[in-house]
C-alpha cells in the first residue's frame, strides 16, 4: 500500500483525530520503517497455518456471572464528569442523522 498524505488524513479522520501538517509528515516518515518491520512478521515461514493468539495462554476461570446481584451507580455519578447535562441526561450538540 502506498501511503500518501491524503490516506494518512483519511485514517486520522476516521479516528476522529485531526493532524497538523508536521504530524502527518511524521506518520509518513515513520511508516516506511514500520511497514518494513511489519513485513518481518509476514516472512516467518508457514505463518498462515498458525492459530492466532488472542489471549495470553493462561487457564482462565470459565464460570460465568450469575444473573442476580444488581449493582448500579447513582445518576449523579453518571453525570458528574460530563461537561453538559440537563436534568438527568447527558447532552451533546445535536447528533445529525446520517
Amino acid at each position, binding site marked *: 500500500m502506498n501511503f500518501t498524505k491524503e490516506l494518512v488524513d483519511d485514517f486520522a479522520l*476516521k479516528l*476522529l483525530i485531526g493532524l497538523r501538517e508536521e504530524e502527518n509528515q511524521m506518520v509518513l516518515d515513520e511508516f516506511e520503517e514500520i511497514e518494513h518491520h511489519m513485513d518481518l512478521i509476514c516472512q516467518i515461514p508457514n505463518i498462515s497455518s498458525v492459530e492466532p493468539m*488472542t*489471549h495470553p495462554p493462561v487457564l*482462565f476461570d*470459565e464460570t*460465568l*456471572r*450469575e*444473573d*442476580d*446481584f*444488581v*449493582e*448500579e*451507580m447513582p*445518576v449523579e455519578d*453518571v*453525570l458528574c464528569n460530563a461537561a*453538559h447535562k*440537563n*436534568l*438527568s*441526561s*447527558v*447532552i*451533546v*450538540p*445535536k*447528533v445529525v*442523522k*446520517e
Partner: protein
Amino acid sequence: MNYIPTIGIEMHCEMKSHTKVFSRARNTYSEEANIHVSPVDIGLPGILPVLNKECVRKAIKAACILNCTIPKYLYFDRKNYYYPDLPKGYQITQSHDPIGQNGKILVPFQDGDFEVLIHDIHLEEDSAQLEHIGRYSYINYNRSGVPLLELVTEPCFHSKEEVIAFLEYIRRVYQYADISLADATKGQIRCDVNISLSKDDTLGTKVEVKNVNSFANVGAVIDSEIERQLHLITCGRAEEIEQETRRFDEESGETKRMRSKADAIDYKYFVEPNIPKIRIDEKMIDEIKKEIPVLPRERFLKYTKDYGLTKVDAQTILKEKAISDYFDSWIDAGIEPLEACNWIIGPILGYLNKEGMKISDFEFSIADFQFVLEKLHDGTISSKQAKEIVGKMLTEHASPKDLITHDFAQISDEEVLNQIISEIIERSSEQLEAYKNGRTNLFSYFVGQVMKETGGKANPIKTRDLLEKKLK
C-alpha cells in the same frame, strides 16, 4: 418481465434478564434516565465486561430452537465505530464465530409451513438511547449494555407476507421460550431489511434498510423499496440501484439513502481480549434443550389435527404461551378439547380482557370449572345456567358449589314438578288437544311453561320425563 424480490432479515431483539449482558445494572425499561447504569455501561476508563450466564444460556436456547450449529468455544468480538450512543467506542458482539450458525426453522404460513434458513444468531449489547430535542441530543444510558440477540437470515424470503409471518413467529417463539418479552411497543425489536430484485436465480443488487422499528414498518419498507427499485428498472435506470444502506422515513413512508457501499464503515472487528474464550459444554447444551417448551407450531398442529380446533380458535389460544399452557392443563385434567376451547376463549378470556388481567393472575381452579361441567353433563344445570354460574363465579368470586345449591338449586322433586305440570296441562287444553292430534313439537311448549313457572329451576331432564308420561 416478472421481477422477484429476495429479502433477508436481521432481527435484533432485547433479551429478558435481570441484569445487563456485561454489567450488573438492571436490564429494565424506565422512564427515568440514567438510573440503571454501571461504570461498564458508560465506558469509563478501566472498566471490564463480565458476561452474564443467563444471557449465554438464552442465546444457546435460541440457537438450539433454530437448529443452529453451536461452536465449541464462545468468543466475543469488538465492533469499532464512533457514535454518541456508543460510550466505549466499540460494541461487544460476535462476528467471527457466533453462538449459532447455519440454522433453519419451519414457520407456519397460510396453508402450510415454509422453511427459513438462518445464517447465524449472536449475542451482543445494545447502545444508549438518543433523543433529539432542539439543538441538543440527550443521552440516556439505561439501554446501554442491554442484551441483544441478533438473528440473521439468509436471503430466503420472496414476499412481505413471508417476512411478516417469520417475524411474528420468531417473536412468539422467543416469548414461549422465555428468551425475550419481544415487546415491539417498547422498542425491543428492531430489524434491518435487505432487498434485491431479480428475474432469475441470480441475486440482484442488495439494498439494506437499517433500524426498522416495527413489523408494520418492515412491511412498508419492503413495499416501498420494491416499488422504488421496480420503478428504476422500468424506467431503464436499473444501474441506479446501488449497493447501499438506506433508512426508513416514517413520515413519507419511503426509504432514504444513508450511505453507499463505498462509504461503508470498516468496523475493524477483533476478538474481545477481556473475555476469555469459554468452552461451551455439551452437557449445558443438553440441559438447555430440556428447557425448551413445545413451540407454537407444534402446538398448532396438535390443536387443529388432534383436537379438531378451528385454526382461528387455535391461533387465539396460541397468542400467549400462558394461555396455551392453561388450555393444556384443562386437557390434562380430562376436559374435552372443544369444550375447554369454548370455555377458555369465551367466558375466561372475555373476563380477563374486561378486567385487564393476565392469565397468570387468574386465580380460579380448574376443579371449580370441572364441577360446573359435571353438573352440566348430568343435567343438573342447563348450559345457560352453566354460563351464568361461571359468570357469577368470576365476577362475585363465589364458589360454584354454593351457586348451584343456592341460586341455581333445582326443583327435582317429582311431586312438586307433577303438581306444576298438572296445573299447566289443565289451563292449556287447546295445546293439549293439538299435541294429541300429532303436533308433537308442542312438547317444548310444555317444557317452556314448566321452566317459566319455576323460574328456570326445574330439572330439565326430570321435567321431560314427567311430561312425557303425563302427555301420553
